[in-house]
């Protein structure tokens, strides 16, 4: 029983984002990158499922340029057994990513595909759902609890209204939310071992994947700056102002 985990290399969450003066994007050159934090949670979940004996092999997949190999090495240090690197230097949007992952899924036939609920760079949050659509299988997004039982799984999802539990038939796609687990500290010996684990390079063409229609990025700008509001003198005025804005009744 295999689990496939999709991981993405993104600008590290600690990095202060700078929009390029020419509006062509954000500064990524010389900036620290890391595995998308939600993907770390997906990796951790896969490793826990393996430790519980629910699955026997973990395959990490990434799609992107040569530098993404370091992200796969991180996944291997987490505990992936091997990795597939779909090499593509150009921009990869969610639908293309989903097509590439679907092609890898068809080749590997995993029981479970785990992805982060979104990548913290583009904040699209689409790939998992698109992948499930292409595979015509069940999806459970924003997972905060995953229990695998044979060819079924119970997944608790963090939705706006609370916690929803679904039962899904496997194979299925699960996307992970923050509270699913706390990813482990990587140990130096595991990082050392990861250097020797196999990474299989493939191209979109090898997978027979055509690049999907894409959304065009015209320009990137800084978010609007919040302006200064009004200053009130008394608590009564404050209460009145809140009422006027419809924030309290």
């Amino acid at each position, binding site marked *: 029983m295999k689990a496939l985990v999709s991981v993405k290399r993104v600008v590290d969450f600690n990095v202060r984002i700078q929009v390029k003066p020419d509006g062509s994007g954000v500064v990524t050159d*010389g900036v620290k990158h890391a595995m998308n934090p939600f993907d770390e949670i997906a990796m951790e979940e896969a490793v826990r499922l393996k430790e519980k004996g629910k699955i026997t092999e973990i395959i990490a997949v990434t799609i992107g340029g040569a530098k993404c190999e370091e992200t796969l090495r991180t996944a291997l240090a987490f505990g992936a057994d091997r990795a597939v690197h779909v090499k593509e230097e150009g921009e990869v949007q969610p639908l293309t990513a989903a097509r590439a992952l679907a092609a890898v899924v068809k080749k590997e036939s995993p029981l479970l595909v785990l992805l982060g609920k979104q990548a913290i760079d583009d904040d699209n949050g689409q790939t998992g759902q698109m992948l499930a659509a292409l595979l015509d299988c069940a999806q459970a997004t924003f997972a905060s609890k995953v229990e695998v039982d044979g060819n079924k799984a119970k997944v608790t999802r963090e939705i706006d209204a609370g916690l929803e539990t679904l039962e899904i038939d496997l194979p299925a796609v699960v996307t992970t939310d923050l509270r699913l687990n706390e990813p482990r500290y990587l140990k130096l010996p595991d990082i*050392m071992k990861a250097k020797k684990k196999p990474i299989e390079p493939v191209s979109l063409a090898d997978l027979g994947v055509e690049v999907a229609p894409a959304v065009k990025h015209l320009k990137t700008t800084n978010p609007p700056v919040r302006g200064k509001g009004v200053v009130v003198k008394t608590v009564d005025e404050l209460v009145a102002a809140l009422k006027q804005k419809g924030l309290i009744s």
Partner: protein
Amino acid sequence: MEYDVVIVGAGPAGLAAACRLKQLAATAGKEISVCVLEKGSEVGAHILSGAAFEPRALNELFPDWKEKGAPLLTPVTGDDVYFMLGATRAVKMPGLFVPRPMHNEGNYIISLGKLVRWLGQQAEGLGVEVYPGFAAQDAILDENGVVRGVVLSDAGVSRSGEHKEGFTPGMELRGKYTLFAEGCRGHIGKKLMEHHGLAKDADPQHYGIGLKEVWQVEPGRHRPGLVVHSAGWPLDTANPGGSFLYHFEDNQVAVGLIVDLSYKNPYLSPFDEFQRFKHHPVIKQYLEGGKRLAYGARAITKGGLNSLPKMVFPGGALIGCDAGTLNFAKIKGSHTAMKSGMLAAEAVAEKLLAGGTGADVLDNYTEKFRASWLYAELHQSRNFGTWLHKFGAIVGGGINWVEQNIFGGRVPWTMHDMKPDHASLAPAAESVRIEYPKPDGKLSFDKLSSVFLSSTNHEEDQPVHLKLKDPSVPIQKNLPLYDEPAQRYCPAGVYEVIRDGDKPRFQINAQNCVHCKTCDIKDPAQNITWVAPEGGGGPNYANM
């Protein structure tokens, strides 16, 4: 885990040493295993320097660095030196009157962070194992005091010291030789110096704190390759220092102020001096209308040859700023750090390739150092900082001009500066309180929004990595005597004296720490010890 050589710190010294070891092993057709540990979350994350870079050591290490794509992109094209007479006035020094080591022909304006990232790639390409995100906590000393490697800091310990889920004890990394390249005031280097008495024949070490920002400037104000240095305002003879401003690629300018940590006035705040400094017309002319992109700070080791400790001990050596190889006359430490790393690597390789099993004293490193251009360079400028310190920028600078330009540094006297920096503060009662202007949000900023730009982060739930030997000292001694200067010398707002209750209380916001080490150096009671936090913590400098 056992290696031939363990190197602590992936800066210019550590990585140059690692590359040199692999090169020498390859030439000899033998294997030397080399591992480099870096406490930053990635190589370059904790690197901060000006930097006007002299390529001498790099030329020796990688003669083909251009073909290999080393990021030396902007040659120095102009070299202005100003003496700031006040908040608005300055005189430009004619080139003739500038001490020779301060000339920059043939040098490059670089981001040392970028260069170090490139060096990291070269090292990995040569087979060095580089592990960022792992902090060495301590040297492993055997019963005979021989250094056998290092032990990493634990991961997953709570603030109160309990083991959290996923606790990982720090593992040991053993090496036949261990090279310490932690940079200025390395916390293991400091311990080794004490343990082995390495500094007992040297003058006290001297330090500065360098604060730096990177600005995106208006294209019309950008002069690629221009180097601007200044002395004088806002600092003075009792509280000396100097500034730099470098125009490098992409309409970016690096600006910084170095404040000598021998400053006397406990009310002085290096951060605020730097902020007001940027309003000087000489500086403002470039920055006005621009946008600040990055901020950081780091202490520098500037005592030079007179303060240089013995660099070797059984089983290893100190290299780069961990030892103190910066040339203060040039205000440059990168080429000297690299060279010291390369010399140590040559010494280690000599031993290992001859079948040595390590653990002995690398006397051949000392010999190679003595015979090198590095030593000659440091010897030439050994009095530079002392003259400045003793007589200020004008008189001291004049003496330096005579020494360096007339005598080429070959003078028969050596000046000593025996007072350590932590002992230089005058009592608050005898000092003038400094009222700093409010930041305008355009050229000058407050501390916290500055720290924000350093992308500093630490896992919050971990023990405080700034240890007080005696927790009562800040409030009971430092506060009445010096108005607790930590509040001001820390460039990241780590230390606060809070007076919200009936009694003042000392707070340490360890999470803000940019790992500059100034507190460890300047605390008048020498009560603060900087230890390594969980690996990966600290600033995340992009290209500083």
